[in-house]
């Protein structure tokens, strides 16, 4: 047995038996919600599998062994895809049923218990092979074979400080897996923030015609493209706080899949014919995970790694010709992030719709990804190899001599020497001159990147010493350039200077917008033909491709070019050159993932702005709407973050009509407004009979503003009922802290009040109307106020089958991930019943328990359900207190139908009731 290569079984159960056919609801989110969701772990992921490596290997094998390549290629492709799928799903299943523990994503958690794991990962993150990690994972695997959990925990806690909370226990496998054959309305969330009846109908039709769009993950149907596959893996998690464990689940899956592929004999179980060959494949080149929607697989962070991984989404776009990843002088992910305009999230950002079908999209994306990765790797490897060879062969002394010779020739007015000096100095200034800082800082940063050390396998000299040589050589040349420039020896007649006298990277900068042309080999050779060449291998007689560079100056320019290329590659290297040992994942669908992490986008900004505007307008209205007091608050200078009124007076945010600008006024206002500013406020509409239904019948008028405001210690509850009445009360309810309520009553009850004040009621009512109207309009911002919806395709299909369309009254229920019944409460009850029992509900009605039905208030109702359980209705209690607040009580599950009663007893037993 080879050291470090554990020939162990890892899979156990048949994968087919652990995969269900549930399809997670399609989750819609607008921009602000999508940004918020990025902080939560995904329950659905796409797995892109590219079988090119397996195909290429099988092709070579077939050619070598004189067999038919095409049959081998096809067979290898199918087997490879199924092997990856089976292995990944098996590992997910083992984690979900509590065989394997969760490995944390947060390595910097000082209170983290798994210190061995944290230390090993930190130690191993910059090395290609890590025996300690292999051993650690191997011990976890061995413990996973123990059936008894207590014993398992006992064994595993010796590996690290694992506790039962580090395990997930899902009784029933929550996994489902589909091979996506083509895009359809089942990916409708990529194009819409909220579905309408038409969208739901399309989903229903796609679901009913699903054979066209999705199939079983392990399907071996003949398919036009046998190279690129997109799988959708859904998790139907029950009774678990997924936000607590989700990221760790994906982290564990990614690490263990890579490990098991190489270090266990699992492959033998999932690939009968090719497992010997597949073991040699670079799994991470063949698969990647993309969260299906706005949620993430890894916690978003404002790091080089996250930014470059997420930049991969650009490679999916149809117009990917001028991509940063292929540019000689890329901006880099950080600058790109700041400079780019706010992206859309519900506008098919990955351009699926622009491609003929899914296959052509995945093929295009993978081709770009592989090209970008190859380019990135070659730039770094070739660049370092060349820089090392030059640094070891061209001494600074000989470089100095050559430069002195060129200067001497230039002084003799040799135009060729002047041209060489001119172009060399310009290139050096662009790359290495810190006084101009075009790229010198970026290049220095790139050479300090740990990614570079990780990739470098071939150079004997350290990256640091190679870069140190480059810097010294650069400084030497620049000092000569300064002197030559002072003596006007670098001035060249523009007529003899061609674009191709510069290296391509310099052309890219100096001739912006023009096509870059390669520098001809002849143009690189020294004009005085008196120098040396630097060869890769002096003993090889083949001339072509054996020369690194001609003369010291050409070598220096090649060195600079390599440094620039390396700098370009390092920008995105974290994504492309990820260490083997962890599957790549990228939040491709959600561009706000990194914008949130880097705090560039604030999903609450519009909510806060609308609320702040409401506070501002309401206060203005209440205080000044009924008289002619010439003061108004202006919060329009962005989102105010005001800590004191004094500050807003100083900043000019609080404005006065000129004639009232005096210190007395200001201090009076300070007194009155102090507690009010910057307080977020919620709108509470006073409940007159049927108030909610009459929302559209504005105007509603204010009875006053009540602002609950805590001081910095959160101890006081200040209430301001108008500008001059601010009183403090002990805080009784922490929920009130930092909030305000605005009481609205109908016009009739308040008009008399204001009339009695003999002020300006018309002005007041107009202003109130404007205030409320502005607020309601702002809250209708469908992009920037967080909003979500979800559609269960199966439910949508049921509604469509029942009505042959999606009736308007069903849109709300179906958009909440429910089927359509009597009302929302009935739909929620049906959904809960199906979720708990797995039985299909045919009808659901709500009957009030005490004879008086109410959905809005907390009056208990009975849900009467007709289902596959039995012929007849069964009943349980339900307490529908609002759309998001429903309680079910299955303990009193019963039926008046005889044929249902025995089934209910059985069901209760199954549900442990």
């Amino acid at each position: 047995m080879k050291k470090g290569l554990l020939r162990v079984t890892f899979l156990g159960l048949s994968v087919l038996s652990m995969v269900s056919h549930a399809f997670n609801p399609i989750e819609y989110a607008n921009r602000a919600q999508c940004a918020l969701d990025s902080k939560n772990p995904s329950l659905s992921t796409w797995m892109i599998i590219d079988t090119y490596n397996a195909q290429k290997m099988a092709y070579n094998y077939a050619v070598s062994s004189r067999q038919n390549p095409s049959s081998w290629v096809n067979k290898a492709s199918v087997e490879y895809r199924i092997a990856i799928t089976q292995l990944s799903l098996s590992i997910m299943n083992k984690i979900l049923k509590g065989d394997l523990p969760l490995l944390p994503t947060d390595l910097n958690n000082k209170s983290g218990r798994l210190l061995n794991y944290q230390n090993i990962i930190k130690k191993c993150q910059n090395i290609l092979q890590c025996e300690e990690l292999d051993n650690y994972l191997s011990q976890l695997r061995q413990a996973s074979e123990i059936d008894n959990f207590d014993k398992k925990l006992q064994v595993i806690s010796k590996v690290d400080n694992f506790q039962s909370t580090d395990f997930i226990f899902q009784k029933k496998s929550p996994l489902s897996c589909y091979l996506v054959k083509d895009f359809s309305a089942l990916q409708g969330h990529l194009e819409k923030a909220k579905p309408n009846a038409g969208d739901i109908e399309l989903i229903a039709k796609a679901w009913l015609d699903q054979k066209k769009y999705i199939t079983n993950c392990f399907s071996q149907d003949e398919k036009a493209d046998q190279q690129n596959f997109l799988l959708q893996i859904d998790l139907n998690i029950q009774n678990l706080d997924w936000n607590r464990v989700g990221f760790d689940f994906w982290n564990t899956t990614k690490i263990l899949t890579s490990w098991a592929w190489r270090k266990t004999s699992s492959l033998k179980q999932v690939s009968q014919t090719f497992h010997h060959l597949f073991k040699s494949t670079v799994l991470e080149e063949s698969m990647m995970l993309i969260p299906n929607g706005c949620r993430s697989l890894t916690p978003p962070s404002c790091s080089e790694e996250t930014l470059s991984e997420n930049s991969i989404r650009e490679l999916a776009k149809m117009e990917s010709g001028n991509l940063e990843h292929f540019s000689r002088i890329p901006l880099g992910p950080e600058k790109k992030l700041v400079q780019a305009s706010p992206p859309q999230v519900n506008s098919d950002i990955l351009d699926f719709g622009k491609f003929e079908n899914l296959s052509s999209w995945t093929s295009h994306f993978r081709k770009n990804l592989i090209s970008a990765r190859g380019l990135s790797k070659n730039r770094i490897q070739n660049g370092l190899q060349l820089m090392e060879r030059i640094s070891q062969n061209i001494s600074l002394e000989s470089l100095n001599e050559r430069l002195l010779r060129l200067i001497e020739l230039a002084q003799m007015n040799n135009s060729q020497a002047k041209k060489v000096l001119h172009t060399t100095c310009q290139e050096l200034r662009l790359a290495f001159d810190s006084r101009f800082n075009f790229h010198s800082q970026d290049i220095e940063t790139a050479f300090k990147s740990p990614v570079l050390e990780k990739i470098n396998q071939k150079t004997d000299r350290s990256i640091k010493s190679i870069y140190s040589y480059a810097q010294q050589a650069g400084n030497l040349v620049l000092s000569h350039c300064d002197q030559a420039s002072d003596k006007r020896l670098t001035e060249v007649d523009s007529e003899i200077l061609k674009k191709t006298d510069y290296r391509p990277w310099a052309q890219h900068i100096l001739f912006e917008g023009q096509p870059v042309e390669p520098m001809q080999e002849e143009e690189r050779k020294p004009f005085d033909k008196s120098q040396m060449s630097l060869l890769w291998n002096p003993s090889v007689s083949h001339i072509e491709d054996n020369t690194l560079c001609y003369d010291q100056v050409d070598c220096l320019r090649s060195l600079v070019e390599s440094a620039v290329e390396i700098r370009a590659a390092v920008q995105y290297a974290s994504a492309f050159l990820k260490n083997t040992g962890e599957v790549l994942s990228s939040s491709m669908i959600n561009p706000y993932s990194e914008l949130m992490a880097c705090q560039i986008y604030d999903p609450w900004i519009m909510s806060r702005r609308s609320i702040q505007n409401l506070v501002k307008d309401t206060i203005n209205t209440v205080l000044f709407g009924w008289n002619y007091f010439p003061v108004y608050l202006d919060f329009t200078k962005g989102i105010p973050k005001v800590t004191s009124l004094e500050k807003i007076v100083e900043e000019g945010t609080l404005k006065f009509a000129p004639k009232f600008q005096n210190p007395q006024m200001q201090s009076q206002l300070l007194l009155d407004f102090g507690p009010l500013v910057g307080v977020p406020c919620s709108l509470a509409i006073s409940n007159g009979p049927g108030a909610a239904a009459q929302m559209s019948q504005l105007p509603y008028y204010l009875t006053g503003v009540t602002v609950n405001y805590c001081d910095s210690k959160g101890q006081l509850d200040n209430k301001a009922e108008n500008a001059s009445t601010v009183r403090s009360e002990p805080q009784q309810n922490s929920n009130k802290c930092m909030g305000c309520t605005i009481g609205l009553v109908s016009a009739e009850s308040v008009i008399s009040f204001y009339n009695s004040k003999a002020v300006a009621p018309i002005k007041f009512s107009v202003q109130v109307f404007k205030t409320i109207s502005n607020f309601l309009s702002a809250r209708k911002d469908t992009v920037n106020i967080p909003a979500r919806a979800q559609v269960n395709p199966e439910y949508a299909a049921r509604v469509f089958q029942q009505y042959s369309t999606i009736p308007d009254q069903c849109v709300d229920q179906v958009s909440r991930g429910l089927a359509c019944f009597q009302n929302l409460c009935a739909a929620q009850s049906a959904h809960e019943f199906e979720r708990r029992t797995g039985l299909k509900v045919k009808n659901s009605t709500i009957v009030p328990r005490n004879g008086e039905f109410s959905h809005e208030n907390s009056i208990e109702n009975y849900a009467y359900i007709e289902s596959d359980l039995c012929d007849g209705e069964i009943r349980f209690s339900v307490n529908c207190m609002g759309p998001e607040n429903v309680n079910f009580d299955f303990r009193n599950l019963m039926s008046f139908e005889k044929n249902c009663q025995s089934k209910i007893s059985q069901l209760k037993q199954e549900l442990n009731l």
Partner: protein
Amino acid sequence: MKPFILIFLGILIRVQAFNVNIQYGFDSSGAINRSISITCEDPESDFCLKECGMKSCLVNEPPCINCSGSNSEILNIIFSKISRFYQVAKSSYVNKKAFLELIKEQKVILLDSQSPFNFFTNIAENQSLDEFNKLCPFMATQAWVVLRLDSFGFPDQPIALICENKDLKQSVYVLEELPKTPHLKYNLN
């Protein structure tokens, strides 16, 4: 360079005692398999018989972790530019016994131009054979680079080159890294 040189210390010698080749087939479970076959060239040579136990022996090639893909820098160098970084050792001795041991212990794999791991050059045009031929002392019709694997099964270093002439005669040469300096060629004019 690397520790392997210690094994291959000495002077260059053609290995006359046996020929190596790649065989393709299936293992007992029906999985396709690559094996290195060692055939005694001279049946009278007791060395080969002693080491193999018979006139020929077959050793399964070990997996080469991360070799199938474009990830490995060393494979890129071997297939597309080995002559830039390696040379045939001018004075080296091939320890035949040690060489056979390496194969038998599954510590090496053989890479030819059409290897399953060649993701770097056009196999139909045998481009890598042209590259290998820059190092073979004669125009080989077939050549294999002997790649040593590290203790994890990852590719480590090319350690030898087997060149085969048109008469199917094989010679093994020790490979060593080119000294990094000096590589300067001065124009005489």
